[in-house]
């Protein structure tokens, strides 16, 4: 849904919607009635946009948490590896831990 102009002249309010997989643009017009319709559409869209925004915020928050936990896990893992190595173990072929010979 948008206001458009043709060759820089006038402003027309249009709506786009999908019909049978194709985008169809509906011409609403210009002037006070088009302004009114545009305001109504905006009011109708508002809750959906707010919901979408809340979801984006939540997604970002979860992604940040995921990163923090991954970071934390990596650090703990490196401490564990260091301690095992100090105790005389090594990772055999990047797999199981084995005690060094000799």
């Amino acid at each position, binding site marked *: 849904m948008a206001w458009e102009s043709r060759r820089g002249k006038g402003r027309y309010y249009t709506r786009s919607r999908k019909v049978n997989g194709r985008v169809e643009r509906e011409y609403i017009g210009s002037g006070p009635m088009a302004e009114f319709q545009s305001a109504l559409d905006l009011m109708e869209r508002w809750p959906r946009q707010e919901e979408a925004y809340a979801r984006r915020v939540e997604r970002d928050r979860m992604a940040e948490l995921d990163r923090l936990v991954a970071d934390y896990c990596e650090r703990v893992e490196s*401490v564990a590896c260091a301690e*095992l190595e100090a*105790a005389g173990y090594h990772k055999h072929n990047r797999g199981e831990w084995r005690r060094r010979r000799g």
Partner: protein
Amino acid sequence: MAENVVTIVGRDLDGDTGKRDLKLLDRAQKGDDKALFELKDRHGNRPGFWKEVGDYSRHLEQHMAKQLTGDNGLIREGILRKLESMRQELTGPNPSALEELLAERVATCWLQLQLAESRATTTGLTLTLADHYQKQADRAHRRYLAAIKTLATVRRLQIPPMQVNIAEKQVNLLG
């Protein structure tokens, strides 16, 4: 995550002194050096206090528990207590420092897995978002299993050699 330090430390603080400390903590978290200095002065010789302030995994847990339960403080408290008992069960009676650290990680990963799965199973998600959360849950699951595996490995490798004598012949079973 800043407010969580106050939440954790605030549990031990009662009365007017406690309220004063909470205010100081709040100010210190917002970058007030004077408040930090005063906190150091007041709690310099309380290692438990600073251990809790600096406990990164507990902060993560508090944060995740809040995400998981929203405003429901009762369920949140239940989850935090479950994590505590999980840690105790995993560490056993005389854990080494490394075992404690690894058990802590298992508990943190478990909570993240619960959170990620709860998001992945939310109804009404777009396909892209559902896929995004599912991948996050998969990563959390892998981390959880890896955390358990490392704890088990450390336990296994630290078991002292056990000797059994069978017909005067020594057999090493473990170690």
